[in-house]
């Protein structure tokens, strides 16, 4: 039996979105309203299983009466709200935010970012060859994770997933300030010495590929990672009685990655080290 949470009935709120009248349930965000009518708003730090961090500012929209632009991922709709997602001001903001990000970090493995950049005409090279960047060597200090912080946009999602929103391990935090802000364990100690439990839930939410599974990273490096050849099969983890859903990503009859559906009422996309990484025995032939 599938349990579907329907919640309490909600009133509908009417607002104007790019000149059109839209009705969405009370408590919905502007982003929810956009999604409901098929409008695509770019997001990076937004996560469907996390509270909005409001950090990346890619999803900014214009709300009549507001001095500044507002983040659509977190601002809740209000009756009579007049929202513009494609004004000169929102487009300028989106373009500059993408340019700033692209000038400081490696976005080469961030999904959709090329489309967004070309749609708004963003050119990160405008800041010149001497613009300070966050580029740095990749950190590999354990057999399961690769951390490439040159790709990190400081979206806070890994910290939130590791901390009080899901895992409660608190192995990582944002350290430093300003441009020097970075994701770090205490005193930047290697992951094996930290509170990390290798659940992989930080990798699950990372929007840029700054965090990746070692297996996927290695296959990408040697050119054998091919998503077009992969199948996804969702099953139930056999390790304990919780019954987490596992999605097995299989390429050439070999499991290459394990995730969990974000809409699973058991996991909300999260797993533990056994479900996430304990599948080598399956392919011992």
């Amino acid at each position, binding site marked *: 039996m599938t349990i579907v949470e329907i919640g309490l009935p909600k009133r509908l709120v009417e607002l104007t979105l790019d000149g059109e009248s839209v009705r969405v349930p009370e408590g919905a965000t502007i982003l929810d309203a956009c999604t409901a009518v098929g409008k695509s708003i770019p997001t990076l730090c937004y996560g469907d299983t996390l509270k*909005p961090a*409001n*950090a*990346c*500012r*890619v999803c*900014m929209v214009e709300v009549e009466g507001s001095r*500044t*632009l507002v*983040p659509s991922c*977190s601002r809740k709709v209000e009756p009579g709200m007049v929202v513009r997602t494609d004004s000169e*001001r929102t487009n*300028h*903001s989106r373009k*500059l*935010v993408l340019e*700033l*990000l692209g*000038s*400081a970090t490696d976005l080469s493995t961030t999904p959709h970012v090329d489309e967004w950049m070309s749609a708004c005409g963003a050119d990160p090279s*405008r*800041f*010149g060859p*001497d*613009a*300070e960047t966050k580029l740095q060597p990749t950190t590999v200090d354990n057999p399961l994770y690769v951390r490439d912080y040159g790709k990190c*946009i*400081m979206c806070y999602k890994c910290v939130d997933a590791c*901390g009080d929103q899901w895992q*409660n391990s*608190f*192995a*990582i*935090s*944002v*350290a*430093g*300030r*300003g*441009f*020097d*802000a970075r994701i*770090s*364990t*205490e*005193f930047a*100690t290697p992951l094996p*010495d*930290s*509170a990390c439990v290798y659940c992989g839930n930080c990798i699950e939410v990372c929007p840029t590929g700054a965090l990746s599974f070692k297996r996927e990273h290695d296959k990408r490096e040697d050119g054998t990672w091919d998503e077009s050849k992969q199948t996804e099969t969702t099953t139930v983890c056999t390790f304990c009685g919780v019954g987490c859903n596992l999605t097995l990503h299989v390429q050439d009859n070999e499991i290459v990655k394990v995730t969990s559906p974000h809409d699973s009422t058991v996991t909300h996309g999260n797993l533990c080290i056994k479900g996430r990484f304990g599948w080598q025995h399956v392919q011992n032939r």
Partner: protein
Amino acid sequence: MDLKLLDVEPTEAERVVVDLFNGMGRDQLLPALHAVNDRVGWISQGALNHICRVLHVPPAEAYGVASFYSLFSFTERPAKVVHVCVDLACQVNGAKALCDRLTDELGPAGAKSGWLRSPCLGVCEKAPAALAFEAGEVAKEQLLAPTHAGEVIAVAAAGPSHVDGERAEVPQAGAPGLRLLKRVGVVDPESLDDYRATGGYSALRTALLLGPSGVIREISDAKLMGRGGAAFPTGRKWDATARQPVRPHYLVCNADESEPGTFKDRLLMEGDPFAVIESMTIAGFAAGCSRGYLYLRGEYPRALHLLRNAISKARERNFLGENIMGHEGFSFDIEIRRGAGAYICGEETAIFNSIEGFRGEPRSKPPFPVESGLFGKPTVVNNVETLVNVPVILTEGCEAYTRIGTAGSTGPKLFCLSGNVSRPGVYEVPFGTTLGELLDLAGGVPPGRELRAVLLGGAAGGFVRPDELDLPLTLEDARAAGTTLGSGVVLVLDDTADLGSFLLRIAAFFRDESCGQCVPCRIGTVRQEEALHRLVGKRPLSTSAADLQLLREVGQVMRDSSICGLGQTAWNAIESALDRLGYAEEATS
């Protein structure tokens, strides 16, 4: 929560100071870090580890918090260190030459040489300034202002000689008609008796008679606007908080005065500390708060000493505590929290995170503090100067108060004059005084020089030209003229000032002080500084006009899309220099 701690132990001295926090929680993280820093001068792995053990804070999070504050160091440094101000007012008054001398004699700034460059120390009336610190069983701090290389070198070697700083200059001290400054420089700031003999605590008595809603009505009718920079109506803030059914309510007095060129709050706290305590008590009574936090910036040792004294004396005489002044059921007490070198913590929601023991990052609004503030409860946040207007209103009555100033900007206002001005200091004038009149009061620019520009409102404010001196200093006139009074900064530049390096310092300030949470500010402040360097140094990427355009675009996205006021205003002063002072033409010609 099971914590995984590092396998390192604190030294005996570190253990002793951290153990005093036994049984306390996360909100004591910043005080515990201060305790270690005061004792040994830096934060070792063992000390942080032990803090985590005692307060039950995950080590990664404690590391994230400690690394947020510039006064803390994770690398060992000597017990004695001198923080030398290189910010706006000090730059105009020889900070660069001072730092050059120190580099020659002591070596480059850093832990080894015993001196560090510091953002504005809030002693702009006596620039250039430095703050000497020595860790030990009793940490010592000494303000050196105005200072010179010889003194800094001597103090760097010998350590601070006494705990207190110098008394502040109040050019108007004792003048008739002063309201906010009436006791400053006249009355003994350590004596509750002197405070009461000059009308102290009569306003609280009036407040207790009026009742909370009566006080809010008086403050609303007086049209008191916040003096911290945002000019929000104080009565509305108190009323919105008072109406929240959730309990408890909190009061936060924002004394994290860090806007370069601002020193009025320090002067009030040092010259009239009991007034700050009484005002907070009245605010707590009106808004239904049982507890107040006074968030004081870490670089104000004299204010800290005097406020601690004031709070303990007020407690002794039942002006704080249970059933205050015999008023059944009204209990209120105040805790001082020291900042640790982060401008952003003066942002009204960042201050909550800092007090709660998290990184001082601003929160997204809504929800607003009146609804969900400190510890998620309804909270009033007021600036020191705003609060000390409250006893004036209750004593003189709201009608009399509205007759001071103009219709749109009521009451007296403090302005911080610094830079190239003959008699720098804090001046109290009614709103509506013109900028020219204020400059005359401070003696204008030094003899033989000519006025080049005035930076109004601080690094987040804007420049005005010498031909705009008839600008009446009111909220509405400043707004109409496309500028702001901000926190009351009036930083004067004469024809000897180097505008280019002044602007570069503003850009460096915002880059250093950005919390790093949102992209427009974290990366934008860096790109702004880079582009400005190219513009000032006349080393354009392609053309100066293109750099100028880039600067404008970065400025616009910071203003439109940053989370908080820091990013939103990080471009204001630079934009006004380009357009209002004509620096754009100068830089591109």
